[in-house]
């Protein structure tokens, strides 16, 4: 399927939410079209060395809410429904990028039901604290899944102050155990 693509220095995984400020005409058009046709658009990582700065994968997002800020700029809340592969990127006359996107099952650990919270409850507790302590984050997330370890790991990965590149490496290029180890080291100081 063909979708408009919005490259930003952002890291998002399925079932994540984020808020964007939309003011450029090309992206206002993108939002208009996405709402009209109920198609959403693709949010991907801004790359410095790829055609049109588009990364190979991105997240298909749905616009779930909108508002405006104090300067009357459009704000949209988006929900990442799915991770997608992006191909055949081109740019239209308004400099909006489009591409052919196809669903992919990455990160592969995300849907693995064997990943139980169990011994990893500290990751759960600490994330719960973050949500409880941040009204914005709490309001942004219309749906949470604190009972699912992959959801918890994904949110931590989005939130932690490491580079997008490292986040991608952790999400897609290493196994779930390594990711959990990483999180435990940072969050619980476990030198396992």
């Amino acid at each position, binding site marked *: 399927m063909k979708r408009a693509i919005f*490259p930003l220095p952002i890291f998002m995984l399925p079932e994540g939410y984020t808020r964007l400020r939309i003011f450029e005409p090309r992206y206002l058009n993108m939002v208009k079209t996405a709402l009209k046709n109920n198609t959403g658009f693709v949010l991907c990582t801004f790359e410095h060395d790829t055609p049109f700065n588009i990364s190979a994968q991105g997240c298909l997002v749905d616009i779930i809410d909108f508002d405006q800020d104090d300067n009357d700029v459009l704000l949209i809340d988006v929900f990442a429904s799915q991770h997608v592969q992006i191909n055949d990127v081109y740019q239209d006359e308004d400099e909006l990028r489009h591409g052919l996107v196809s669903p992919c099952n990455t990160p592969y650990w995300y849907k693995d039901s064997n990943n139980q919270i169990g011994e990893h409850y500290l990751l759960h507790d600490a994330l719960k604290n973050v949500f409880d302590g941040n009204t914005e984050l709490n309001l942004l997330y219309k749906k949470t899944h604190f009972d699912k370890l992959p959801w918890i790991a994904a949110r931590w990965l989005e939130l932690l102050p490491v580079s997008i590149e490292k986040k991608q490496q952790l999400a897609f290029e290493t196994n779930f155990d390594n990711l959990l180890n990483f999180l435990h080291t940072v969050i619980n100081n476990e030198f396992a």
Partner: protein
Amino acid sequence: MVSQQQSPRCEPNTGKYTAMPETPSKELMQALLDVAQSRDKKAFSYLFEYFAPKIKRFGIKQFGVEAQAMELVQETLTSVWRKAHLYHSDKGAATTWVYTVMRNASFDMLRKMKSNKEENISEDIWPLLNDSQDTHHEYSDHLEDKQIKRYLDKLPIAQREVVRGVYFQDMSQEQLAHQLNIPVGTVKSRLRLALQKLRNEMGDQHD
């Protein structure tokens, strides 16, 4: 073992024979002060003669290569020449101060070598300042400016409410420290450790 042509400053002041020559602390301190106060070249060459072989030995241990050890000698002693005015006798022995300068120079070199070889750890964690200057306009305003967010926590609450944006992307190290109730320095070292472990797990194929 004791050189016949020792500089007079280096004369052991006890007059007693010792297997290890004593550190001429007083002389070194005086030389350093002379360099600081009057850019005394003779005093500097005295410091050079005393420290160069020791720094070189440390450098060889550190880098395993003589060329780099010599670079460390040069880096350290140039810094000593330039920064001597920052030394005060009440800060402790001249040797301590010079070795601190040496250690810093050595860390700098290691860091440089590392960033040539692989990614610099600090850039892994703080990519925002160097990154994306050229393409900044492309997206800067679509996301709440992260750098502003980073300063948020330092603002008084009232101001924070004004600046605090619409947008929540990721946490600053300060925010994470606050959340976990630990010092920022601890966050930094845990992140560094975690990244290092990750690198070990994944081998070198990504560097």
